């Protein structure tokens, strides 16, 4: 459709794609294999996506893991809004769904899935949120893009693409489920005072 070729709402005119649809599918496949390898068969893996786009990525990863292992992989979502450390700096956000698979996370290997790893604060909040839900055997992190600029001692176990960026740049992940197409866009940040990273 022609429409897909138009710049989607929110995309900056000067944003350029750094990952396209086929790249995203390929890196997810790679991550799935890495998980199976490192988790020795992924017997006890639970995938938890961080809303919004982390949830779609987690579902895609689960599909790929199921193809590899021919087993059902539990997948859910973990909303971290109420655990954010910047809550007091903005109006409250609408909450997203936290959906923990039926057997819970106790004693399991939880792989958190998010689209972009940046300051690490989201992941810190996710670890806090997990703490209130159960006690996993271990927690790992899978991200589509690691753009650097960590503010906390956090690193990803599985990275789709390392993307060195400057703080004046923005990274925008678009996924078919939410945005109509798969792409990762790198753009310049508009000079908006008060915009948060």
């Amino acid at each position, binding site marked *: 459709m022609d429409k897909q070729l138009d710049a989607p709402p*929110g995309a900056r005119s000067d944003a350029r794609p750094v990952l396209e649809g086929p790249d995203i599918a390929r890196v997810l496949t790679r991550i799935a294999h890495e998980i199976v390898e490192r988790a020795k068969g992924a017997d006890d893996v639970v995938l938890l996506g961080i809303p*919004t*786009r982390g949830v779609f990525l987690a579902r895609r990863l689960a599909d790929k893991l199921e193809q590899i292992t021919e087993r059902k992989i539990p997948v859910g979502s973990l*909303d971290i809004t*109420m*655990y954010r450390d910047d*809550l*007091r*700096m*903005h*109006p*409250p*956000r*609408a*909450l*997203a*769904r*936290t959906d*923990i698979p039926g057997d819970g996370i106790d004693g399991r290997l939880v792989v958190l899935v*998010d*689209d*972009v790893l*940046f300051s690490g604060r*989201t992941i810190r909040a996710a670890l*806090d949120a997990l*703490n*209130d*839900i*159960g006690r996993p055997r271990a927690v790992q992190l899978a991200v589509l893009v690691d753009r650097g600029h960590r503010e906390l001692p956090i690193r990803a176990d599985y990275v789709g693409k390392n993307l060195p960026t400057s703080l004046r740049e*923005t990274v925008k992940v678009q996924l078919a489920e939410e945005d109509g197409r798969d792409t990762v866009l790198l753009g310049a940040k508009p000079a908006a005072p008060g*915009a*948060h*990273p």
Partner: protein
Amino acid sequence: MQRHLISAADLTRDDAVLILDTAEEMARVADRPIKKLPTLRGRTVVNLFFEDSTRTRISFEAAEKRLSADVINFTAKGSSVSKGESLKDTAQTLEAMGVDAVVIRHGASGAPYRLATSGWIDAHVINAGDGTHQHPTQALLDAFTMRRRLVGRDAGLGKDLDGRRITLVGDILHSRVARSNVDLLHTLGAEVTLVAPPTLLPVGVESWPCEVSYDLDSTLTKSDAVMLLRVQRERMNAAFFPTEREYSRRYGLDGDRMSKMPDHAIVMHPGPMVRGMEITAEVADSDRCTVVEQVTNGVSVRMAVLYLLLGGNEPAVTHARPTEEK
């Protein structure tokens, strides 16, 4: 949303839907091993109750504690209020202790409005019931219960109560629950009918956005939800109706009457119920009666209100959703 929650009439449709959606997520916290969120850590909320209401107070208290707020309970009995201290002085004393929000229950209509608008204090004010005026969180938990039962738990997300037919029966005149429900249900697109003897309807009710009927039976068949309001026995002495028996015969809900309701229709009651008066035990204990659910939902809805008013640096913005950026 506004800074305070004083009246259900102050909520826009988007405000109300956001609160109900947020409450659905809050409800899931109750299913977790640790029923607590860190969201209001470091915030102090005072429950300022000038009128006895253990139910409402513990519901707010549970909501506040689940969000990790520091909670101060202040009840008028045995306090300086009974020694003649004014509402203003009490509120200012509490604010001097660094209170971020005041949840107030007061016997005088308009007391929360006064507290919020007279410049006495800066804290957020949440109305937990004032006189015969408003009880907005009750209306929200009622709407939440209706949406869950009539639209669906997940199917209801983002939706209102468009076209649902809701009937409120009983002492409308003295009921803050009725006033709040009429306002909120109208905002959410429901069609509201009030049923009561003419003595228990306020003069001026004709200006409310609802229908009025004196006849319960003809309304029941056209109702998706029937909410019964408590009728206090002392009203009988003030000649609002001749006898309890006559009241319950004409306006009480018993099994026979309930069977005339559509199969999907529910029976609601804000509690406490007067069994044998407005509701028979058979109805109160039936599956269609949502009284216990309403209590559970009250905690979720109050968590949602507290989060959306106090969780950020200003109340939640409802006209536009903030864009996701990380």
